[in-house]
């Protein structure tokens, strides 16, 4: 394998709030390979957005602080880089698109101005060049009548069109890495598919690497090669998309898969939510952060935090759990609830794997 384009090592980010210090990201490590789409999945508050902001150097200060870690990009540590150097990289090398296209574009500036200021800054375009480039980019992301619409203001575009504008803006300097933070969450379902298709096509054409942050497993199955599941600021499972959907090895991943409604599932089968609430990260549970909600909970889960271990003998991927979810080691877990849950869980995950395979 080649050198990864981006490598995050042992990243820890904390936020100071009224309730105390929140450990938003707690010892996160991952690598982004060239040309791949890496999905980061988790509930809100699991630290996935904070991770992306940390990579961009946009953790809101003074509330948020990066306590430790390294973000390696092209031989330099972004966390140690000067603000000036960071600004050179931001937008030019690593670009980002945000969740809500309604609020992420400046309502006071025309779309053309917002696109042009980027290339004028990074590519030293003249006003003329920048404008032409803006029109070209808008065309590329599929905005009809781009030459005419370049002087329009964001409020004159629909939600999907705005997200296209955001993408055009992010890609206008031809970055190596694109971070997409919930790019489709705020959009209608049909528009979601269009935007995902656009992202996939752009990745192919440009050979970009994409980090796709989402809580929507459908999006992950559709667009990602590799998936990272986060819970409570940590990675709980990491694997290639296929195996992950086929056979989740972490109770949380399994719970996530089970909670997706399926049109082809048995109608008698209950849709199962994961019990309990996401952890309050100002006062996280002891041991494994997931243990209060975990059907496989062991006594040691309350005390020890599981490290990342290989998912299975075949290699490929990691999980952070003492229990082997897939095998008969379920016996270690207690009670009828757990066994029932596993049974239905297996059915659901099997079905999910089928769709995942079909889509690839």
């Amino acid at each position: 394998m080649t050198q990864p384009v981006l490598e995050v090592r042992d990243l820890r980010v904390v936020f100071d709030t009224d309730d105390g210090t929140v450990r938003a990201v707690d010892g996160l490590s991952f690598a982004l390979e060239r040309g791949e789409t890496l999905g980061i999945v988790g509930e809100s508050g699991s630290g996935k957005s904070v991770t992306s902001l940390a990579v961009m150097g946009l953790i809101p200060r003074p509330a948020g602080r990066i306590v430790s870690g390294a973000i390696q990009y092209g031989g330099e540590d972004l966390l140690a880089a000067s603000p000036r150097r960071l600004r050179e990289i931001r937008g030019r090398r690593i670009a980002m698109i945000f969740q809500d296209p309604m609020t992420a574009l400046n309502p006071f500036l025309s779309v053309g101005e917002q696109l042009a200021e980027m290339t004028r800054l990074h590519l030293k375009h003249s006003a003329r060049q920048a404008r032409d480039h803006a029109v070209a980019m808008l065309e590329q992301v599929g905005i009809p009548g781009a030459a005419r619409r370049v002087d329009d203001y964001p409020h004159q575009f629909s939600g999907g069109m705005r997200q296209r504008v955001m993408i055009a803006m992010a890609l206008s300097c031809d970055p190596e890495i694109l971070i997409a933070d919930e790019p489709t969450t705020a959009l209608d379902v049909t528009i979601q598919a269009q935007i995902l298709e656009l992202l996939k096509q752009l990745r192919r054409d440009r050979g970009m690497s994409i980090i796709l942050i989402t809580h929507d497993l459908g999006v992950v199955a559709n667009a990602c090669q590799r998936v990272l599941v986060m819970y409570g600021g940590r990675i709980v499972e990491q694997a290639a998309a296929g195996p992950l959907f086929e056979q989740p090895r972490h109770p949380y991943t399994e719970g996530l898969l089970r909670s997706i409604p399926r049109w082809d599932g048995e109608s008698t089968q209950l849709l199962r939510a994961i019990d309990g609430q996401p952890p309050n990260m100002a006062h996280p549970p002891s041991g494994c952060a997931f243990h209060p909600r975990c059907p496989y909970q062991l006594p040691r889960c309350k005390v020890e935090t599981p490290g990342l271990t290989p998912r299975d003998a075949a290699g490929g991927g990691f999980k952070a759990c003492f229990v082997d979810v897939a095998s008969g080691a379920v016996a270690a877990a207690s009670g009828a609830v757990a066994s029932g849950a596993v049974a239905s869980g297996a059915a659901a995950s099997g079905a999910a794997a089928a769709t995942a395979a079909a889509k690839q």
Partner: protein
Amino acid sequence: MTQATNSAATDAGDSAQAAGRGPEASDKREWEALWEESRRIRGVSLWQDARRRLSRSFTARWSLRLLVAIVAVTVVTPLLPLQSPVKQDLKRRQFQPPNLRPVRLELPAAPSASPAGSAADPLETLWNRPSGLTRGMIRARLAVFGDWCVPSICGTDSLGRDVLSRILWGARVSLVVGIVASCVSLMIGVSYGAVAGYVGGWVDELMMRLVDILYSIPFIFVVIFLMTILGEPSLKKALFAYGIDQMVIFYLVIGALYWLTMARVVRGQVLSLRNEQFIEAARTIGAGTGRIVFRHIVPNVLSVVIVYLTLTIPSVMLFEAFLSFLGLGVSPPDVSLGLLINEGLQVITPVKTFSWLVVFPGLALTLTLFALNFLGDGLRDALDPRMKNR
């Protein structure tokens, strides 16, 4: 609300039990777990939350303390051993700078002997036509302190009157004007806004158009024009015959001027609350109209009303001071802070400035306005639910 949720949970549990099959049994357990969990979540009421945030704001906390102190002092002013606010002494006590020289009230030989209301009654000569309760308080003060009084620690004015005493008596007038006129505006504003918001439709449209028009009138000038006309001596006499003196006119005119914002805010609140989802939610769980009005609408409107009341009082006081300063408001022998500052400024000459005549009343007015404004701001921030947890 608790009642409703409880019964819903029980219902679900009952039906699960009636079916009596495996999966439903585990359903019931889940329901119970959910119920258990929801019971553990404690809501923080708007008022508790507001109090917490108010007490956390440094300025609001100190403004409140200062305000309580100011109000307390002005309420008990007649009880305090102060010098006479009206007694003039052109010969010996003119323009004394702040000092600690002992002073005594010049009481007539036998105050108790002279009948009340006569020229010799100290209440008539040493105080400015006190009435009812104030008379009683002054009598109590005379009984306790006799003729002893606080020295002129704030100096004396051009007519030899004690500035400290005049400031406190003036502050009483200013505060009373502020509070009474604000309450007048409150009554007008709340009823106008509530009617407009509640009736809605074209009535609301018409009423709010009128408010818009009134808003764009430079009211201060109209009021000055009105005060000019009402100050016409013959008219003044006629009104006085009906028991309407200048202060009453003042309350009415200012009250009639400051209701616009209140009306708008209350109307907006009522209007939005009518369509609010939590009102719908309350209805769906079977809350009656009375409960909705008292539990949901009144507290929400009340909080805005309180905030705007605390913000109206200082602007009314400022307006009173402004008019009195221009010689169009409270007129002697009544005193108010604006009038005192004006008097102080009148006697400034290039040769001699009697700075204490301006500084002390100015300080008193500024501190009061300051405290009221900041308390209002603090309350607004504290009661604005959008600010929750910020």
